[in-house]
């Protein structure tokens, strides 16, 4: 665990970068520092590896003051990733990744083998090992940056806006892989970003910093969205925090129905009196085929003969959130969202009313997610 105890950083000119910051970054979790520019989040990050020395207060790693280690030695045990990757232009990709192993005097063969292993882990082709950084795209460089930080398998990773300089598509990709990697590695990660969406997506805990280096709130993403500590936090998160909160309500909490669902071989007569004017047609395996409009049914035959409107997207009852379900409902021609199981078979249909019920229920709940958070 990384612990900040009353950490203050005041520069000679009188600027206060950190103002009496106290917080814990739990072991094996992702703590995100988010806030306005000048909020001190990067300064806070850098006190952990002594790139910034606090004016007062202490930073502890597992109870030990970071000042008990020499800076260079301390840093070799802490992974560090920055915005523009900061790769060494004069070193090949494999040697960039092996930087810390070399500093730790591993032999060259072992260090390179480790570099190759990590390249695979972060999704880089082996053929890139001998290339130089400028030959890689921004996203690839950032992957090298992550691999380099992981090279000596440090328990702690500091990440300073690592995905900010790449385009949104690549960013989302890197974020997903980062989460996947963290699922395997369980590093203690401190992650700085100015992007609230990124903080909510990645953070187990989010620390919000305000201009002047004040820490205003530390909470789980759910709690942050549900109960911002003050107007600054509420404004910073944005007006759509209600919608974003839906990401944390599981779709499984919505009531599902089998109303107006018919197999493709059902006679059209059974579809004529569909309540909403639409019937969901499924195949023999219960895989949804499309929506049939009651008004547009053929005079006779089976519902499978009707021209079907596409479903748009379905939602996964087990894994998706109410946000995904609501989106599916809004985009559906019938206004109803189609829920499927892991195999893609129909689990049930929910209309917007059903989803509202789930949302209202979650709002009334005393947030079970937060209770679990406090335990860890």
């Amino acid at each position, binding site marked *: 665990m990384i612990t900040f105890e009353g950490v203050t950083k005041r520069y000679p000119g009188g600027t206060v970068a950190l103002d009496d910051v106290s917080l814990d970054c739990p072991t094996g979790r992702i703590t995100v520092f988010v806030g306005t520019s000048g909020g001190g989040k990067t300064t806070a990050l850098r006190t952990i590896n002594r790139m910034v020395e606090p004016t007062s207060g202490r930073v502890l790693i597992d109870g030990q003051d970071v000042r008990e280690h020499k800076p260079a030695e301390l840093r*070799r045990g802490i992974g560090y990733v920055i915005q523009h990757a900061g790769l060494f232009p004069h070193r090949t990709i494999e040697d960039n990744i092996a930087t810390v192993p070399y500093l730790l005097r591993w032999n060259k063969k072992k260090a390179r083998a480790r570099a190759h292993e990590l390249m695979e882990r972060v999704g880089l082709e082996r053929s890139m090992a001998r290339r130089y950084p400028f030959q890689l795209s921004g996203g690839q460089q950032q992957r090298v940056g992550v691999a380099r930080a992981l090279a000596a398998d440090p328990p702690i990773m500091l990440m300073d806006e690592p995905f900010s300089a790449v385009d949104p598509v690549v960013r989302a990709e890197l974020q997903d892989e980062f989460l996947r990697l963290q699922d395997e590695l369980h590093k203690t990660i401190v992650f700085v970003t100015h992007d609230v969406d990124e903080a909510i997506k990645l953070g187990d805990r989010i620390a919000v910093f305000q201009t002047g280096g004040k820490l205003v709130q530390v909470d789980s993403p759910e709690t942050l969205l549900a109960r911002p500590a003050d107007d600054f936090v509420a404004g910073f998160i944005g007006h759509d925090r209600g919608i974003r909160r839906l990401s944390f309500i599981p779709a499984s909490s919505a009531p599902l129905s089998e109303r107006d669902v018919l197999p493709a071989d059902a006679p059209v007569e059974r579809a004529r009196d569909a309540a909403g004017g639409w019937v969901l047609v499924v195949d023999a395996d219960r895989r949804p085929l499309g929506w049939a409009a009651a008004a547009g049914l053929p005079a006779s035959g089976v519902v499978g003969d009707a021209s079907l409107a596409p479903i748009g997207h379905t939602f996964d009852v087990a894994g998706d959130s109410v946000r995904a379900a609501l989106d599916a409902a809004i985009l559906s021609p019938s206004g109803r969202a189609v829920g499927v199981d892991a195999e893609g078979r129909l689990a049930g249909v929910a209309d917007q009313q059903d989803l509202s019920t789930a949302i209202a229920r979650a709002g009334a709940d005393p947030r079970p997610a937060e209770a679990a958070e406090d335990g860890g």
Partner: protein
Amino acid sequence: MEFDWDWIARNTDSLGEHALVHLRLALLPVLFGLLIALPVGVLCRRWGWLYPPALTIANVFYAIPSLALFMIFIQYTGLTASTVMIPLTLYSLSVLVPNVVDGLASVSDPVRQAATAMGFGPLRRLLRVELPIAVPIVIAGTRVAAVSSISLVAVGQLIGQGGLGYDIIRGYQLSFPTQIIAATVLIVLLALVTDAILVTVQRLLTPWARVRGKVS
């Protein structure tokens, strides 16, 4: 006027000898200049306030006519090679010091920060990261310094230390253009070959910069 090829054939040995002396007189000062410019450049990067006065001093040296500098150093080092090489060393600084500083400045902030955060101490960072990245710019400066030094050495003949400068002055005294032309052409060739060697050295030392040149 006729170019006397026979004279060339008869004097290849002495011309070759003069060319070697010429190279030594020209290039040792560049080497010494580098040895001075590297630490001075590093200090100028470390403490920014040092750079303007350091650059001014280097430029003042460059502004003093070589003849005047020879006269000054003759009092201490006599009519020796040092009297030629010391001024040439000082001249090279006006190119090399700013090049070392620019080279070190070409290391981007993220790279410097990353190096620090990976656990490089200041000295190791300088030797393993900053200086290697500065190499292309430092070598660019070295090329200018070497070429100008090779052309400047000839003046040293005024105190009897001029390499191929000897043949230029001798040719003038004897009204024998062949010797003047031969020496001049050789000096130009020495400059071109030296430059080509430095370009090759740079390519070998910095494959990462060479590939960049090809791509962009």
